[in-house]
């Protein structure tokens, strides 16, 4: 992977046609960027602009320029990877066939075994999947777990776009740790404060436009640490609830 990946976002306009006032934004490899705002504020639209490396022809007229990635990779669609919370598989293939085919489509050598992708996916999914299972028979959580593992290990995209990972039916903590490794540039659309505070900065959207850019402060990081403890307690209680234990 190229390590000098830079993504430049030139502002466009919101749903009312008003220009975005955030100025040109530059993002670097290794950064984690949260995208926040109410439902319908344009989070998914922004992810779409980023995914397409929009030349300015989308309704927002934003321009996205990626540098530091080989043009062949960009042309083949392997520069930017995206996962959303509702994505399902349609292809009539087994898990192992799909991984092997995607690996071959990317043009990497046969050294990457489908088993390693499967193992990573099973580390994120609630219930394990088998290599010979048809894609279409995977549960929603299993499908997204496989997509996350595939995105990192097979597509190996330097820029990742993740839409509401908290609703994907997978272990969001494990998935987040897995995704932000290895110097990638990661954008996370989220309503989850814990995930948003994991980011270096966050973009606040409203009426289709970027309203504010907020850098995560030291004070906020302390909030995150406190939230982490509370979250751990909730997770622990949830496990006990599942096992039928007393919650006192």
């Amino acid at each position: 992977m190229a390590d000098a990946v830079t993504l430049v976002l030139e502002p466009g306009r919101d749903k009312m046609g008003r220009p975005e006032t955030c100025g040109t934004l530059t993002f670097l490899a290794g950064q984690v960027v949260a995208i926040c705002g109410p439902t319908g504020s344009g989070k998914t639209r922004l992810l779409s602009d980023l995914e397409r490396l929009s030349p300015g022809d989308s309704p927002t007229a934003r321009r996205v320029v990626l540098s530091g990635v080989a043009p062949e990779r960009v042309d083949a669609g392997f520069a930017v990877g995206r996962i959303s919370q509702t994505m399902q598989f349609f292809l009539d293939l087994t898990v192992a066939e799909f991984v092997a085919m995607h690996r071959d489509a990317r043009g990497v050598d046969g050294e990457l075994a489908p088993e390693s992708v499967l193992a990573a996916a099973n580390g994120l999914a609630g219930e394990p999947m088998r290599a010979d299972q048809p894609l279409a028979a995977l549960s929603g959580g299993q499908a997204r777990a496989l997509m996350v593992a595939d995105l990192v290990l097979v597509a190996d995209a330097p820029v990742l776009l993740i839409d509401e990972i908290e609703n994907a039916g997978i272990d969001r903590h494990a998935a987040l740790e897995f995704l932000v490794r290895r110097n990638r540039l990661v954008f996370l659309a989220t309503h989850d404060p814990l995930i948003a505070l994991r980011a270096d900065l966050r973009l606040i959207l409203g009426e289709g436009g970027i309203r504010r850019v907020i850098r995560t402060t030291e004070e906020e990081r302390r909030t995150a640490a406190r939230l982490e403890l509370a979250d751990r307690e909730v997770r622990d209680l949830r496990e006990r609830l599942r096992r039928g234990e007393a919650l006192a």
Partner: protein
Amino acid sequence: MKVAIVAGGQGAGKTALLLHVLRHARNAGIQGGVFKIDALDAGDEAVFQAAGFPATGHAAGDVCPDHEAMVVLGRAWDWAQGLGLDLLCIETAGLCHRCSPFLKRAFALCVVSGLAHLGTPEGMRPMVESADGVVLTKTSLISPAERQVFTARLRAIQPAGRVLTADGLTGEGTGDVAAAVLAARDIRFLDVEPLRSALPMGFCHFCQGMGSGHG
């Protein structure tokens, strides 16, 4: 006048894609219209007309629409000329995809649904191979990983690797398709035009409407 032949299977997303292409063209000051050929009259012209684009349809009846498109080419040309259009789009949904309705000089666009079977690109090889561009549609419904696998399949067949992705629902990617269509050269007449790929040599009894038999 520019002429684009837009071909692909039933339900591949040709009409939704064309609507976007026509809008992009109109924004660029190019007036386009659609001559649509179907096996049975599906009345899809109304979709274009409702969006303010001239459209007319033709039912191919017992003949494959892709073949029929070649037969009624002159009629489509006269219709578009009569309206003074800058861009004539001929939309046709072939039956078996054993051949392709692409002409030597007209811009050739092959549309493939992202929800299709992975064997589809190979199954419609003559069309994928002879197109100026292949458009993979419905991309907002499939995962990026699947899109990459599908695109690689199409690129393996398309000699120049011209595979675009577009979504008729959101309009994403349709600007690129429109730009490709609008970059096509103008044609001054359309009469007897050579095809890009060879047709099958004959028809079976079934094709001729004589029912099944001993062959």
